[in-house]
C-alpha cells in the first residue's frame, strides 16, 4: 500500500511541477487534471472512496473543464504571459528570494513538525464503550437503571432494551431501582472501543451478562447480523432451527447448534428476509420446543440480539419467550452512506448554507458576465452644487452681530441700551 501511495504521490508532484513550468495554459490545465486524478487515487488508498468519486466528478470533471472553457474563450494559451518568472516588471524581482525563503520555512517547519508530532505510531485513543441494558430479569418489574451519574434507563419494562449510552471503560457499577424502591447493584466490566449489550436476567437479583454487540458495518450484501443469548437455565443449551415458511416443508435448517445457558452465540449473518419462522429447542432433545419466533423479519444492516428468557405471566408462573432487540449497524468508513449520515444529521445546516452559496455563485457568475447596456451610463448626472460654503454659514451665526437691534427698554433715559 505504501509503495503504491509513494508512486501516486510522485506522479502528483511531477504533474504539478509541469503545470507550473508549462508555457501553454492548456497544457497547464491538463497537468492539473493529472494531479487531481493522482489525488483521487490517493483518496482511494486512504479509504475515502466517496471523496475520490467526488474529486473526479466535480473537480476534474467540472471545474477543470470550466477552466479549459474559459482559457479557450479568452485565447489565453499564449505563452508570453503564462511563463513563470518571465516578468518584465522589475519591481517584482524581489519576490523571488522572499518567496523562496517563505516556502522553505514553511516546508521545513511542517515537515519537522509532522515528524516530531508522533502521529506516526499513534493509535486512535480508545473510545469509551457503548453499552445498553436488556432487561429480562424476572422479579424486579420495571426498573430505573443508573450507572454512577449516568442514567441508562428510566422505567425500563421487562423485555425491553435501553438505548446506548457511553460508559467508562473498565468496571462500572449498575444500580437497579425497582418501582417499589428496592435497589440492586451489580458490576460489569467493559472494554474500550466496543459496544455491548448488558443482559440483566435471572431470578431475584439480576445477573448481568455482557454480550458484545458488533455495530460495525455488515459487509455481506443485504444481510443482517444476529446473536442469540440464552438466559433460560432450565435446559443446558438451546438450538435455533429455522423452519422456513409453511410453504417449504421438511426444510428445517439449524442455524445455531447450541447456546449454553447464560452465554451467547456467535454472530450469525443472515440474508434479509421478510418472514422467518424460528424454533428454539432444547439442544439435547430437539423435539422439545421451548419457544418460537414466528413471522419475524430479518433486516439488512442490522445487528440483532435475541434473548431467550423466562417471562413472568400474570399468575406468577413464567413462560419461556424470545425477546428481540436490534440496532442499525454503522455504515462502512468512507462510504457514501457514512458520509451521507454525517452530512444530513450532524451537518445539515452547513450543507444548506453551502447550497445557497452555490446558488449565489451561479447567479453571480451569470450577472458578471452579461453585457452592459449603454443606458446605464447616462444616469450619472449633474453634480449638485453646495448651497453655501461652510465658513460663510458659521460667520453668519456667530460673527459681528453685537448690538444689532437689541430690545429697547421703556423710559429711555435711565436705561443702558443692550448693545455693547
Amino acid at each position, binding site marked *: *500500500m*505504501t509503495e503504491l501511495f509513494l508512486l501516486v*504521490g510522485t506522479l*502528483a*508532484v511531477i504533474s*504539478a511541477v509541469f*503545470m*507550473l513550468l508549462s508555457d501553454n*495554459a492548456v497544457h*497547464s490545465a491538463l497537468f492539473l487534471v493529472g*494531479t*487531481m486524478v493522482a*489525488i483521487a487515487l*490517493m*483518496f482511494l*488508498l*486512504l479509504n*475515502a472512496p466517496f*471523496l475520490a468519486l*467526488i*474529486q473526479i466528478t*466535480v*473537480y476534474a470533471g*467540472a*471545474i477543470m473543464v*470550466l*477552466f479549459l472553457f*474559459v*482559457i479557450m474563450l*479568452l485565447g*489565453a494559451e499564449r505563452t508570453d*504571459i*503564462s*511563463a513563470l518568472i518571465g*516578468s518584465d516588471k522589475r519591481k517584482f524581482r524581489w*519576490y523571488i528570494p522572499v*518567496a523562496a525563503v517563505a*516556502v522553505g520555512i*514553511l*516546508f521545513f517547519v*511542517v*515537515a519537522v513538525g*509532522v*515528524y516530531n*508530532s508522533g*502521529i*506516526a505510531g499513534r493509535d*486512535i485513543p480508545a473510545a469509551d464503550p457503548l453499552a445498553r441494558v436488556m432487561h429480562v430479569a424476572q422479579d424486579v418489574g420495571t426498573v430505573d437503571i443508573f450507572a454512577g451519574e449516568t442514567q441508562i434507563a428510566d422505567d425500563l419494562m421487562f423485555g425491553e432494551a435501553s438505548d446506548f449510552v457511553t460508559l467508562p471503560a473498565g468496571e462500572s457499577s449498575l444500580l437497579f431501582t425497582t418501582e417499589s424502591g428496592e435497589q440492586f447493584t451489580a458490576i460489569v466490566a467493559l472494554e474500550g472501543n466496543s459496544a455491548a449489550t448488558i443482559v440483566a436476567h435471572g431470578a431475584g437479583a439480576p445477573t448481568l451478562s455482557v454480550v458484545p454487540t458488533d455495530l460495525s458495518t455488515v459487509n455481506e450484501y443485504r444481510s443482517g447480523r444476529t446473536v442469540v443469548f440464552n438466559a433460560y437455565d432450565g435446559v443446558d443449551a438451546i438450538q435455533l432451527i429455522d423452519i422456513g415458511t409453511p410453504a417449504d416443508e421438511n426444510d428445517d435448517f439449524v442455524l445455531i447448534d447450541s447456546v449454553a445457558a447464560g452465554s451467547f452465540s456467535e454472530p450469525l449473518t443472515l440474508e434479509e428476509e421478510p418472514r422467518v419462522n424460528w424454533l428454539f429447542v432444547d439442544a439435547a432433545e430437539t423435539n422439545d420446543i421451548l419457544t418460537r419466533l414466528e413471522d419475524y423479519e430479518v433486516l439488512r444492516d442490522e445487528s440483532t440480539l435475541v434473548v431467550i428468557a423466562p417471562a413472568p405471566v400474570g399468575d406468577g408462573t413464567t413462560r419461556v419467550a424470545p425477546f428481540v432487540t436490534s440496532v442499525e449497524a454503522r455504515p462502512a*468508513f468512507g462510504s457514501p452512506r457514512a*458520509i451521507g*449520515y454525517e*452530512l444530513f444529521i450532524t451537518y445539515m445546516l*452547513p450543507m444548506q448554507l*453551502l447550497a445557497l452559496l*452555490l446558488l*449565489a*455563485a451561479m447567479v*453571480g457568475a451569470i450577472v*458578471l*458576465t452579461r453585457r452592459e447596456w449603454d443606458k446605464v451610463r447616462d444616469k450619472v448626472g449633474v453634480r449638485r452644487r453646495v448651497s453655501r460654503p461652510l465658513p460663510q454659514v458659521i460667520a453668519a451665526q456667530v460673527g459681528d452681530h453685537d448690538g444689532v437691534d437689541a430690545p429697547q427698554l421703556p423710559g429711555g433715559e435711565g436705561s443702558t441700551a443692550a448693545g455693547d
Partner: protein
Amino acid sequence: MIPTEMAVLLSVVLFVLGTLGVLFKRNAILVFMSVELMLNATNLALVAFAQQWGEETGHLFVFFIITVAAAEVAVGLALIVAIFRTKKSINIDELHQLEG
C-alpha cells in the same frame, strides 16, 4: 493504512508548489489554477487525518471545500471574463486600478 505523515508531507509539497504558482504566474487563469492546487493539497491532508482518526468529519470538510471551490471558480472565472472584455488582457500586472 497509509502513514499519515507521509500524506501530510505530500500535501505540503503540493501546497508549496501551488503557492509558487500564485506568486509567479502572470496569467490570471493560471494563478487561479494554482489556487486550486493548493486547495487540493489541503484536501489531501484532511483525508489523511480522517483516516487516522477514523472520523468521517474530515471527509465532510473536504466535501465542503470542494463545493466552495466550485462556487469560487465559477465566480472567479466570470470575473476574469468580464475583465477581459474591458481590458482585453488577463495579465495581472496590468490590473492595478485599485491602487492607493
